[in-house]
């Protein structure tokens, strides 16, 4: 049984997991859907009540029925590198590939339906509340007056994109940013705006969940840090990430979140305040983990490999050499 990894070639973070799977003798096929019709090919037939499908990349061939699990890591758009790419061809290739993969009994990390839903931040906030995670007071609105009233109730606010996406024309980044007092909220009318009470934080927490296993890391906010540097991704901090125990109540809530979201993997961001409370900020269903593993030594790649290699009932995979074959 083979593990299928959908990701780009340059995704060196995926290499960490491929290495672990190789060490365990678990067959792996790695491909980028962007290479469909060039370096990647697929075929499936539905005849006499039976469905057979195959995928090939380079000189590897794998049967759809032989897939143990699918790791949707950082795949490109299907057929994006075809000889004559088009939106139509991408849709055709996407339907063919993911449609066939949905016919298999393979486990998904994460299933595309769950992944798509899990990207919606408003939905994340509600699920976090229902799961028992503390969520900072948040408003998402296109009403300027609602924003003004919210800022009166919570004078220290940050603003961040609802989607997490960044504008590309021209390319810009939109970090989580503090909103100054007496800000004019008139432009809220021109786009949904996410305002959130700023958590005065002592540390950032990145909690990486792999199946039932939780790996939490803590990055201390330096005492002389500029309070306007809210977004750790844009912060000049040189503090390392250190492993930290997950409080039992947080662990219970995170498991509830993952169950509610139907996710096998999630990278949670929290802000830790002076009372030691971990405030939920977001959960990225395909968040990076390599930087945490390198700082903390936490075996996240190994945990992912074990999850991908195990049977649906959680039993470890039997060892076996990687096989190659030709069409």
């Amino acid at each position, binding site marked *: 049984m083979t593990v299928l990894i959908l990701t780009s*070639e340059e995704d060196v973070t995926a290499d*960490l997991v*491929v290495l672990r799977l190789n060490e365990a003798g678990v067959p*792996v096929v790695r491909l980028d859907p962007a290479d469909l019709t060039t370096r990647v090919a697929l075929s499936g037939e539905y005849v006499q009540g039976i469905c057979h499908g195959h995928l090939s990349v380079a000189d590897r061939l794998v049967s759809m029925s032989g897939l143990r699990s699918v790791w949707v890591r950082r795949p490109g758009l299907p057929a994006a590198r075809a000889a004559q790419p088009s939106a139509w061809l991408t849709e055709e290739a996407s339907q063919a590939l993911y449609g066939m993969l949905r016919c298999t009994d393979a486990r998904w990390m994460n299933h595309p339906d769950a992944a798509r839903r899990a990207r919606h931040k408003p939905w994340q906030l509600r699920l976090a509340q229902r799961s028992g995670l503390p969520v900072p007071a948040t408003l998402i609105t296109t009403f300027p007056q609602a924003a003004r009233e919210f800022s009166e109730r919570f004078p220290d606010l940050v*603003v961040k994109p609802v989607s997490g996406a960044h504008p590309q024309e021209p390319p810009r*980044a939109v970090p989580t940013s503090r909103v100054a007092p007496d800000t004019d909220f008139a432009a809220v009318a*021109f786009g949904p705006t996410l305002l959130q009470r700023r958590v005065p934080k002592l540390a950032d927490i990145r909690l990486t969940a792999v199946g039932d296993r939780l790996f939490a890391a803590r990055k201390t906010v330096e005492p002389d840090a500029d309070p306007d540097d809210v977004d750790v991704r844009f912060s000049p901090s040189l503090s390392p990430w250190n492993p930290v125990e997950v409080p039992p109540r947080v662990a219970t809530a995170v498991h509830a979140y993952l169950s509610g979201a139907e996710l096998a993997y999630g*990278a949670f961001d929290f802000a830790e305040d002076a009372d030691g409370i971990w405030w939920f900020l977001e959960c990225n269903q395909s*968040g990076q983990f390599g930087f945490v593993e390198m700082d903390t030594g936490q075996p996240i790649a190994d945990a992912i490999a074990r999850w991908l290699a195990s049977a649906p009932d959680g039993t470890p995979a039997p060892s076996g050499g990687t096989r190659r074959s030709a069409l």
Partner: protein
Amino acid sequence: MQPFTLNYARPAVHLEVTTPYMYDSGLQLNVLPDGRIAATDHATLRALGTTTSTAGSKTHFDD
């Protein structure tokens, strides 16, 4: 008419990182010029920031 959130946008930093490794389709891994597996060279990975949560990826907004 610019949305409020874009008042906080800043120019994207284009990190034209030239990765010193290349994908080996036989190994299904990225390999350094001296033949070592790139993922085992943490010093290089740290320097490149290729495993880091960066935000603003053009193709992926999960960090």
